[in-house]
């Protein structure tokens, strides 16, 4: 599927006779990585939940929680002059807070069998409401003042190398974290017993139950993980942006939804999801490059390119197979 997109991209570039060198700059690549990180984290969490049989459609909301709590904690701990340490503490704290929310969500959908789509939408509404509300309480404005953004990790010397230097050795630590999480998530899903259990819980929970593994526990872990990852995604978004914006659809602005698309697109494989996230990040940034080099198309329409690409690719190459027991609450005595 990635190849397909690549092909479409190349064909398009050839067809429009675009100046490749101006379009695909190093800056473009590293911005794409940064843009992809929050989406990838969210997608990986979401796919764990879905693999285990629970559709967490609330990831957008969890992202908003992650972003606003990180901003709030940064400000509460370090004020306007917060430094890097404060930011990292805030990210950790935010993950802790969001995980409490994720536990509540998990209890609701697993123990109390809440309708997953409704409960997920509710989380989104809650994020849209309480995110900016917290901002208003703290800053008397839906937007935070400038806080602090994460500093790149720079390897002296190596970062001077052409292209790879700027790409790999002068890089946001959160992008590295995302890459690490992706690989670990992949390894866990396909090479540990817990990963087997997640897959079984989503496909045939009864089989897992009769194998003596508690379906509930497996699902709890996956759903809580998904909430936490989306929260982390929000935190990463904030750490890159350096301030919280709560107006409109908040700074998260649909990235959670794109995260869901990304893992469907990546066929529930964490690496596939991360690649898809990179693709969306890349398409977004490509669209910006188009504008920058002055390809004169109505911007509102050019902005739609990624969405259109998703539809075309999904139709032509990818029908995803959804886990068989997705959305079914599981009772062991039934």
């Amino acid at each position: 599927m990635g190849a397909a997109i690549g092909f479409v991209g190349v064909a398009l570039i050839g067809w429009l006779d675009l100046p490749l060198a101006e379009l695909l700059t190093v800056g473009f690549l590293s911005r794409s990585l940064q843009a992809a990180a929050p989406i990838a984290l969210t997608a990986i969490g979401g796919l764990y939940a879905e693999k285990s049989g629970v559709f967490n459609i609330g990831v957008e909301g969890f992202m908003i929680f992650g972003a606003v709590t990180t901003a709030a904690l940064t400000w509460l701990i370090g004020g306007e002059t917060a430094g890097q340490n404060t930011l990292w503490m805030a990210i950790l704290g935010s993950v802790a807070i969001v995980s409490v929310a994720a536990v509540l969500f998990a209890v609701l959908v697993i123990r109390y069998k809440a309708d997953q789509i409704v409960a997920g939408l509710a989380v989104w509404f809650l994020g849209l409401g309480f995110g900016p509300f917290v901002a208003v309480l703290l800053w008397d404005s839906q937007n935070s003042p400038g806080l602090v953004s994460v500093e790149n990790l720079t390897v002296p010397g190596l970062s001077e190398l052409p292209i790879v230097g700027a790409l790999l050795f002068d890089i946001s630590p959160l992008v590295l974290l995302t890459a690490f999480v992706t690989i670990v998530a992949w390894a866990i899903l396909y090479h540990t017993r817990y990963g087997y259990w997640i897959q079984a819980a989503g496909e045939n929970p009864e089989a897992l139950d009769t194998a003596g593994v508690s379906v509930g526990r497996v699902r709890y872990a996956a759903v809580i993980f998904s909430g936490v990852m989306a929260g982390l995604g929000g935190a990463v978004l904030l750490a890159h942006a350096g301030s919280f914006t709560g107006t409109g659809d908040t700074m998260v602005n649909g990235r959670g939804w794109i995260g869901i698309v990304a893992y469907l697109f990546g066929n529930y494989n964490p690496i596939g999801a991360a690649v898809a996230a990179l693709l969306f990040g890349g398409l977004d940034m490509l669209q910006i490059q188009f504008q920058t080099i002055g390809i004169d198309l109505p911007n509102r329409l050019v902005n739609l390119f990624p969405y259109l690409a998703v539809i075309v690719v999904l139709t032509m190459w990818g029908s995803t197979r959804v886990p068989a027991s997705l959305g079914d609450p599981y009772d062991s005595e039934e």
Partner: protein
Amino acid sequence: LGGSSDDNGGGDETTNVAIVSSPAGFDDNAFNDLALKGIENAQEEHDIELNRVEETQQAQYQSTQSELAQSGEYDLIVLVSYNHTEALTQNATDYPDQYWMLINDHVDEANVAGYIWANHQMSYLAGVLAGTMTTEGFSDGGGETVPESAQIGFVGGVDESLINAYERSYVAGAEWVTNDVEVNVGYIGNYTDTDTAADIASSQYDAGADIVYHAAAAAGRGVFEAAQADGRYAIGVDSDQSVALPDFQDVVLGSAVKYIDEGTQTAATAVAEDDFESIAGNNTLSLAEEAIDCVIGQAFEGSLPAAVDQNMQRAKQGILDGDITVPCGATGCD
């Protein structure tokens, strides 16, 4: 309001003012906040009770306006942005005894005071600033210019005619200084996504721009962040953003300002003094009224090359004398 409007006891008369936001909402550090600030300033002189109403759906303006008017409690209702025009056309006649102030557009009724600031003129001046600086070798504060190339950038919120007017006038201003200046243009797609704003600015800096002007309300902060990260400069909009966002004063060379706050202050004061007639009708506020300007950032006062001041003075004079025709009007181009 908090229920305090029904105190018809108390000696001197309270003036009640309501302000309804534009779809971007308050806390945009620009347009809406400036309008609000003017009324708050007026509160220092007069006994004014202010009700701030945030409404981000244009479809709701009709009922929001009439709800406020129907209550009969307000001496003046301030409507921010031309998104209110259609609804007001109806309501101004439905509530003939209600005084209205409409920012950025006008409705031809005796009870409406329309205020339009010359966005195009201030953007032209911003273009003069950018056009002058891009060819000067300058390095101070948090950035530096690339004197060899004449290249600047513009980041807009939504690609709509209002913002197109900013863009075209800005380009014209820069071309007036340096005929062959290259301008990279990018639009975010909304007024809230700081992250995307930063990505666009970054892309433009990458491509060789050294100064980027934004017309993106709250999202504009992203441009400043990119300037800091890339060691380049930016120009703020609406208010003096080196003051409004002091964190970024080291990169904000200047700001295209319009004194909306003075406008709302004048209007609120006029109503408090029972003198609505003095403001009724269409008020176009331009350079001639000294209602717009391009001011130098607080960290750069006195340190910019002399050419800046010279060009700025010449341009202003040219506009006032009619020697320079700024393309576009305050809210769009033909």
